[in-house]
């Protein structure tokens, strides 16, 4: 299971956190707020291996090019997050779907 695996697969998660901590302060702030938002929204893409690490890849590139984080993604950070997960159903969607008929087939 997604986040649990990531956090419990401690080595991987710790490496990820270490990469976040190596980012410039403005990037760290934005990354953390984004992650918090994404945890609340709960897109099923969170369970994939590439959503959060992909953001860090992208941020590392921007930082290396000497850009500020808002210069990179624009000031509407929420819109950026929503774009990232535009095609991903949320856990809430999956749950709601499981309520509307077909109990037990909550797979999309």
């Amino acid at each position: 299971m997604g986040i649990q695996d990531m956090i419990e697969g401690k080595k991987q998660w710790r490496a990820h956190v270490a990469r976040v901590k190596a980012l410039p302060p403005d990037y760290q702030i934005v990354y953390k707020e984004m992650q918090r938002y994404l945890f609340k929204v709960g897109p099923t893409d969170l369970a994939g291996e590439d959503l959060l690490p992909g953001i860090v890849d992208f941020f590392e590139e921007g930082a290396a090019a000497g850009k500020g984080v808002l210069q990179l993604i624009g000031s509407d950070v929420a819109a950026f997050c929503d774009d990232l997960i535009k095609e991903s159903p949320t856990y809430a969607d999956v749950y709601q779907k499981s309520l509307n008929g077909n109990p037990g087939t909550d797979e999309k």
Partner: protein
Amino acid sequence: MDGLTEMLKGTLEGCVLEIIGGEETYGYAITRRLNELGFTDVVEGTVYTILLRLERNGLVQVTKRPSEVGPPRKFYVLNDAGREELAAFWAKWQYVSSRIDSLKEGPR
């Protein structure tokens, strides 16, 4: 021109496909191209979310290459599915723009 964000939604993806269709390229270069074209509101983050979707939907082939500054960079080329999607985009675009033009020209 400013304030195009809403209007560009849905067409930007086609623009990115077109740019990638021209030659192998990467996120920052695509953003620059769009900015030079006059879409000055487009930031790298927007392009990043589009590239992520193109990759997920299997429309591009991605190669990581080392860069002179910072971490490796992802380069994109269209695959067959991507070329089909691009052709479909232009067909839709032509339809929409011709309909809107005829609306402006008024009833005949």
